[in-house]
């Protein structure tokens, strides 16, 4: 089962449905063997982009190359049909053929390629073992649970060693617990198969867990490209900050007179000074910063270590949510939200010290 993973280049991709442009000029590359995720809310064009790469959607313009050679190019008038692009895909609906057995479903791609039946048998067995369905080959595909269908869809997609594997929200139809399990399995499988993958999801945790790199999309354009860590801690603008988990947005006036060590300093309307990082972004006289709710610290006693970004506040409301507790603070005339994992003895009405490391206060582009 060895095939070298292929790179993907997408350039100026535009896809229209009638007069509506679903994808409006998207450019990115996926390195050979890389696991890239397209993340965004529904209607952002992520699935359309994926389907254009697959060849299921005909773009209006742009170019798509796989392994260096063009599979679509509006200028060269190239459009290779999906079945000859050498890719494979896992569908959101699984798209398991109900009139075939599990074995026949998985064997399909191999039979299309006219592999000898003996090879088909061994490779389907291997694939089913890999997705832990080894003993279900003879079962009719219509008699499977959602999770099992998901695994069959996976096995069917990789059994014929495609150079690229595309995932269209493959876990969105599973319940939360199964989804968390499959996420781990999927990641393991991805690494074992040595394959290039493009994954589409609207689920942040999924994207963070399985990707080498994430592209956040909105309204058919790319908002930000980066590693999971970058996307999470250094959102480029309010949309990404908002979409990728919860963040506090703090607006203020620049205080260049106080800025040193490469930090940016904002003064809020109420006069609080917030030190943060510019992350190479330009900042005007007015600026906006994002701070993840989990990066803020709360202490009853004044912490000794902090020299900047230390304020006092009052806990207005406490919401226990299991994995974490969310505190709503009255802070400098506005609300600040903090999430703490530990069940610390903080009560509503407590006066606390809020602090945050300046590298987690990130300047946003506006």
């Amino acid at each position, binding site marked *: 089962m060895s*095939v*070298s993973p*292929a790179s993907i280049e997408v350039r100026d991709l535009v896809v229209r449905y009638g007069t509506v442009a679903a994808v409006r000029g998207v450019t990115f590359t996926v390195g050979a063997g890389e696991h890239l995720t397209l993340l965004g809310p529904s209607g952002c064009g992520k699935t359309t982009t994926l389907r254009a790469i*697959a*060849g*299921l959607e005909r773009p209006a313009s742009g170019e798509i190359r*796989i*392994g*260096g*050679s*063009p*599979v679509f190019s509006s200028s060269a*008038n*190239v*459009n*290779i*049909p*999906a*079945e*000859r*692009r*050498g*890719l*494979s*895909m896992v*569908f*959101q*609906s699984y*798209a398991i*053929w*109900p*009139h075939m*057995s599990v074995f026949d479903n998985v064997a*399909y*791609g191999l039979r*299309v*390629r006219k592999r000898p039946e003996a090879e088909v048998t061994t490779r389907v067995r291997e694939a089913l073992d890999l997705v832990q369905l080894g003993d279900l080959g003879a079962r009719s595909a219509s008699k499977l649970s959602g999770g099992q269908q998901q695994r069959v*869809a996976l096995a*069917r*997609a990789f059994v*014929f*060693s*495609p*150079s690229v594997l*595309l995932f269209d929200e493959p876990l969105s139809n599973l319940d939360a617990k199964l989804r968390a399990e499959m996420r781990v399995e999927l990641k393991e499988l991805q690494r074992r198969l040595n394959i290039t993958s493009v994954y589409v999801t609207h689920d942040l945790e999924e994207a963070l867990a399985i990707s080498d790199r994430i592209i956040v999309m909105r309204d058919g354009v790319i908002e930000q490209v980066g590693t999971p860590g970058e996307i999470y801690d250094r959102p480029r603008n309010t949309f990404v900050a908002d979409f990728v988990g919860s963040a506090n947005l703090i607006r203020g006036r620049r205080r260049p007179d106080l800025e040193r060590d490469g930090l940016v300093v904002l003064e809020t309307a109420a006069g609080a000074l917030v030190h943060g990082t510019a992350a190479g972004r330009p900042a005007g006289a007015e600026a906006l910063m994002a701070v993840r709710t989990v990066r803020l610290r709360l202490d009853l006693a004044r912490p000794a270590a902090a020299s900047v970004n230390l304020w006092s506040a009052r806990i207005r409301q406490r919401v226990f949510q299991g994995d974490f507790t969310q505190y709503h603070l009255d802070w400098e005339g506005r609300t600040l939200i903090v999430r703490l994992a530990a069940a610390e003895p903080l009560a509503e009405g407590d006066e606390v010290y809020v602090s945050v490391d300046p590298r987690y206060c990130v300047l946003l582009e506006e």
Partner: protein
Amino acid sequence: MSTTPSEGSARARSWWPGPRLVSLLVGGGAAILVLYPIAYLIQASLSVGDPQARPPEAYGLDNFTGLGRYAHILGNTLQVAAVATVLAVMVGFVMGWILSRTNVPGRAAFEQLMALPYYVTPLMGALAWAIIASPSSGYVNQLWRVLGGEGHLIDINSSWGIAWVMALFEGSVAFVMIGAVMKSMDPSMEEASQVLGAGRMRTMLRITLPLVLPGVLGAAVYVFAEMLGSFSAALVLGLPARFYVVTTAMYQLVSQYPPRFPTAAAMGVSLFAVMFAMVWIYRRIISSGTYVTITGKAFRPRVMDVGALRWPFFAICLAYLVVAVILPVLTIVYASFQHLGAVAPRWSNFTLANYATALSLDAVRSALWNSLLLGFATASIGILLMGFLSWLIYRSRLPGAGAIEYILMFPQAVPRLVFAFGMMWAWLVFPIPIYGTLWLLLIAYLTVFLPLGLRTISGVILQIDRSLEESAQMCGATWGYRLRTVTMPLLKPGLVAAWLLLFIASVRELGASILLIGPKSKVITPAIVEAWFSTSTELTAAMALLQTLAVAIALAIMFAVARRAVQAGGE
């Protein structure tokens, strides 16, 4: 093993020769099948010269203005259609409500049985009710006189009789439409009303009724449109009493000597225009925004416990099936075994002679054979043609697919008799001599049953998720391979159902056939009607049963073959 995309760049252009060309060809083909006859119908209606001249000597609107003389026929038609529609919608509403919202005994069984009246067909119903209630020899009226009555108790050869027979038939259509609306209504809408303090009556009036009203209205318009174009019951029951509706009057004008084609054509065009408007209204009602009860979610309809009323409701359901199915069928069976129609069974009056006669008549034998042959051909060619068209319309994303669908659904708005009239004229001048042959009937059937086949097959196609085909494509399967391994197997149940429907519909077709048969291309249903008017009632009953029997046998054979094929092909 690795299938790199580079191999494709040499033939990188899509294999699809150009969707516009395909859609043009298909659209053109559809236009010829559907619009060509209609064009000729319109041409004939505008012909004001010698009525027999082809092509017309002069054009004008005289035929339409002259229709004033037939105002009483228009009145008849409206009367029959209105009465039948009211009756049918009442049947549909009451049965729909009982069977979807109450705990009447045998609900599930009744729901299945409600399809039966549709299969009895208006022709069978009319024959049976003529035997039961014709003024002179009808069984009911025979009994009435035995009991000392004068004249007749009921007269089926009247507008009420025709409306009655049609309502029994259309009742099951209305039931299907109204029942579907009632079932698809989210019961939480009613529950919300009750939780907010409204009583059961208030809920019914303020919530339930307004919600189902568009559905009921839609059913009424649909049934009314169908009624305007209905033919067979009006022919069998109306002709003896010289009671004409538009379709039978048209038939009379065409088949009399000398025929008055332009007048008939003008009538047909007028009817067509009215029906077209009705179908348009129907579509507007169905697609209007108020029709929100259909959400596509599956609800478990809330079943009301109606207590002791269960049994009266049960009786209502049973009564409908008795008058619409059991009584007509038993009557025809009973009559077919009699020498002379008599309500009281006497041993000496029973005979098999009617069957012997029917089977010995060459005309009947060849008509039956032709019908079965045509049914087989129509169904087999039909599922291929309509399967391809459905796929083209709903799956290929062809430019202009909507327009093609619209044209193909056109025959729905045209009474089959009117359509056949157009075809008669159109194919008379066609360079290939198919007039008077079975080929013409085949083309006619394929055209008039386009909506039926398309609806059945597209219903299945739309249920098949697009990704099932796409995933085959992503596995590298070419178009033909996908069609063979994924699309066709998934479509099989729908195709089998469509085959059966087309077969049954073709063998029993009357309205189009009656104008298009020739001396050498007779089919069975017009032969039955002919026998009704020119030979004995009992012989006609035997022929009608033979037709039903032949359909049943043919279907049984098809089922057996299909099952064997499925077993052989399957795992």
